[in-house]
């Protein structure tokens, strides 16, 4: 019996030591956290390429998008976080940097020089240091059924007023103008309202005035945006209260709706519908306003301060910050995600290129509330839902916005 126990213990000890002994010989293996569970195929290809070049293996371990932030925070808190991870821009990412989970990247050569200021802005902490390498941006646009438009002689609207007239014409035909609903509780704000907003408030300089509290979110521009939004929701489908973001591509794809306002990241979803020829246009500005587009700095990649392989992590991030690395990575991005490096190589995907071109000549900015007003998120979603339901007015919602803005800014 005693011999057996001794053998068992010795065996267990040996088993415990095995990984340690093996580690010396094995190449470095890093993990990467992400909220893009749809992109496993593309990112894995990129990582295979990176391994070919450097011998460092990076395993992509994504979480479903709406669980990513809490999961990552819990992992980092418990010391089980991935070595590399996608970092949300602005406040959400800054919070994790300030908690000491993200490496400061001030020693990454070329990071400051190779990206435009607007892209760097998304991942710059309050102390001026960068905590992630900008990886990809997204935009919020309108998808439409090209075939249906051609058949009925409908034209892509140039102004918001034209968009409403067009929506009425579509409705008169017995087709739902938009495939948008409010059941998902996020796209109504992130895609529709924040997508419209640059047309009304302008770019980054104007946003700064709201963030400083100089301008209030019940001013003329906001009231106009909310009024136009209210007019738009009248053309949402019958039963829009039950329609979620995931239903939109299906409604457009099956020809039940003519247009769908959503993020550029959805573009790949339409490949499933063979009969659908999908087109894109920017949400048009009202007559007399400067057209803008929400071009959101969305994905950055950060390094974990608690990683066992800091050198390899830094090496990957440095590579990603070079034009060569950024462009290589970009070529593996799924459609609808755009590199932010200066003078990016031309995209190969035609659809992606078409969407990218929508931003030309327009005022571009990240999502309005992401930088300093993200605490308003839930209140804004709730108010936009109430407007769509007809249970509040744009005027009343603007007052709530202004009050919440003051609260978020501590005024």
């Amino acid at each position, binding site marked *: 019996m005693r011999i057996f126990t001794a053998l068992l213990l010795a065996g267990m000890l040996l088993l415990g030591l095995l990984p340690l002994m093996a580690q010396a010989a094995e190449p470095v293996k890093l993990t990467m956290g992400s909220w893009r569970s749809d992109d496993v195929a593309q990112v894995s290809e990129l990582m295979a390429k990176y391994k070919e070049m450097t011998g460092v293996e990076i395993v992509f371990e994504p979480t479903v998008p*709406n*669980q990513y*932030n*809490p999961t990552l*925070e819990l992992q980092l808190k418990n010391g089980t976080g991935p070595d590399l991870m996608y970092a*949300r821009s602005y*406040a*959400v990412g800054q*919070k994790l940097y300030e908690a000491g989970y993200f490496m400061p990247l001030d020693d990454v050569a070329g990071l400051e020089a190779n990206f435009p200021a607007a892209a760097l802005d998304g991942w710059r902490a309050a102390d001026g240091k960068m905590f992630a390498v900008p990886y990809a941006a997204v935009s919020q646009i309108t998808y439409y059924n090209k075939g249906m438009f051609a058949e009925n002689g409908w034209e892509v609207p140039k102004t918001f007023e034209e968009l409403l007239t067009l929506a009425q014409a579509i409705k008169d035909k017995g087709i739902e103008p938009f495939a948008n*609903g*409010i*059941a*998902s*509780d*996020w796209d109504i704000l992130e895609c529709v309202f924040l997508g419209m907003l640059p047309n009304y408030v302008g770019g980054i300089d104007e946003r700064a005035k709201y963030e400083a509290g100089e301008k209030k979110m019940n001013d003329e521009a906001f009231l106009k945006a909310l009024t136009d939004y209210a007019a738009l929701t009248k053309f949402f*489908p*019958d*039963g*829009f*209260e*039950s*329609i979620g973001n995931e*239903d939109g591509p*299906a*409604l457009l794809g099956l020809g*039940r709706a003519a247009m769908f306002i959503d993020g550029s990241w959805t573009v790949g979803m339409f490949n499933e519908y063979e009969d659908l020829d999908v087109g894109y246009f920017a949400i048009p500005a009202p007559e007399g306003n400067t057209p803008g587009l929400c071009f959101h700095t969305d994905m950055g990649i950060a390094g974990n301060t608690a990683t066992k392989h800091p050198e390899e992590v830094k090496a990957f991030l440095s590579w990603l910050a070079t034009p060569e690395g950024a462009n290589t990575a970009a070529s593996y991005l799924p459609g609808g995600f755009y590199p932010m490096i200066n003078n990016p190589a031309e995209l190969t995907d035609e659809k992606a290129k078409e969407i990218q071109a929508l931003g030309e000549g327009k005022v571009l900015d990240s999502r309005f509330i992401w930088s300093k007003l*993200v*605490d308003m*998120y*839930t209140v804004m979603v*709730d108010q936009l*839902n*109430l407007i769509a*339901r007809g249970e509040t007015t744009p005027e009343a919602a603007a007052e709530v916005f202004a009050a919440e803005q003051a609260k978020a800014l501590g005024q």
Partner: protein
Amino acid sequence: MQKTARQPRLSASRINQGGGYWIWYVLPALIVYIMFMAYPMLDSVRLSLYDGTTGEFAGFANYVTLFTDPDTAARFWGAFGNTWVFFAYHMLVQNMLGMLFAVILTNRTMRGRGFYQTIIFIPVTIAVMVTGYLFKLLLNPSFARYALQDMGLGALARPWLGKEETALHVVSLVSVWQWVGIPTMMFVAGLQGISEDLMEAADIAGANSWQTFWYIKLPLVMPVVGMIAILTFVNNFNAFDIIYSMTGPKGQPNYSTDLIGSLFYRVGVVGDHPISNPNPGLGAAISTSVFLMLLAGVIPTLRATQSKE
């Protein structure tokens, strides 16, 4: 010193002789219970006294916030009220249907009992997430409309889950549909245990079927009714998954399907989207408050329905 020395020494044989051997049978379960039930629960009570963001001791501050901060209190009482509605549906609709099915299934003239029993029980075996997503699609007017119109029921294609007036009722009924098999099975078992002699005696005495049910069957299955009531109470106050899958973690629309479970998940575990600012202290305060309320509900129910042996 002397006193201690005189005490019998503790040894395995001593314990067994003294009749204390039962401890060895209880111990494994007790250890598991303490480790996985009692300790986490007490730790949660402890957590409710600490600040969620700084982790410092905060006394009853979380409880004060929970019940006096207008926004937080409105959400808590909203969720609390919704949970009672959700519970009422299960108590009244699910358990009464369960009793009805059980009485029919155990009737002497019933044919094909196994078949019906299986049908009623199948939904219980389906994952809640699956039920939730299936019904979410079935209740979505933009997809169900065409099939309903073909059946001449086009008027039923309404955003059932999107309207504040209907969402909670519909979610409750879906959950009732899923779980009705449990009380049915338990009542069937209870009713089958009733002696045939009693039924015959009732027949001879000329009791009709309603009288047989009311004066013989129901009193005899009362302990089962009590157990079912407690299970329903406890399960519904912990309900979360059906809300998460059918209407979302915010209890959409406009918090009308927000239950204690979803509120706790939002406040204590994930925080607001997208900033993710969970407050474990406040979350623990919610769960502790609900635990105390459950306790206050369960103990009288147990006393009232469980006969003393």
